[in-house]
């Protein structure tokens, strides 16, 4: 069974750094791109970017380029989303998912990580 298991909820202060994770299991981790999706309170889904775990090639949404960093460690089947300096506006639920432009890759979702940034 394919699973994406995300790290737990975080409470941070503005200006702090953070890295959240998404661990894949039940499949060959390097086979599927990992995407990150933001959902701000009461709002819709926003695509942030994606990574190919086989070579760590990344694509970012222009809206998030330069604000977050997506990385992956294939040795532990885990993708990461990180911030160097959080803002209150980063408060949201973040999902990882294997979204892909191909008929051969199902779209699996992680359970989400709630990030709260507050002074």
């Amino acid at each position, binding site marked *: 069974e394919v699973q994406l298991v995300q790290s737990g909820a975080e409470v941070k202060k503005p200006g702090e750094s953070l890295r959240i994770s998404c661990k894949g299991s039940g499949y060959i981790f390097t086979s599927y791109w990992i*995407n990150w*999706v933001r959902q701000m309170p009461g709002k*819709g*889904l*926003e*695509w942030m970017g*994606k990574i190919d775990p086989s070579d760590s090639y990344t*694509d970012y*949404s*222009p809206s998030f380029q330069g604000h977050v960093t997506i990385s992956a460690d294939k040795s532990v089947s885990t993708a990461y989303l990180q911030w160097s300096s959080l803002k209150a506006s980063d408060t949201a639920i973040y*999902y990882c*998912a294997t*979204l*892909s*432009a*191909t*008929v051969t*890759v*199902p*779209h*699996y*979702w*992680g*359970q*989400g990580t709630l990030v709260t940034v507050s002074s």
Partner: protein
Amino acid sequence: QTVVTQEPSFSVSPGGTVTLTCGLSSGSVSTSYFPSWYQQTPGQAPRTLIYSTNTRSSGVPDRFSGSILGNKAALTITGAQADDESDYYCVLFMGSGTVVFGGGTKLTVL
């Protein structure tokens, strides 16, 4: 910037059929965009219903179907049930490698 359009809200009667659409602010949606559909209920992670236009995700009932209707992608729900009341999101995969979600449709079953 590319905008993916969805109806903000829709209502359907129990047992009825509803078609939600996913369009582009400029241009037509085709299978080349691999349109995909997700269902989300409050407090839950999104659930994949349809990917690559019309491929039903494992475990999804066949009353959910995806297609291209005219210049838009479409999600049709036949025999709507009370627990279909959810938010529905479409996504399009752009040739540039980026991905764009629609704003979502809030479906009411009443």
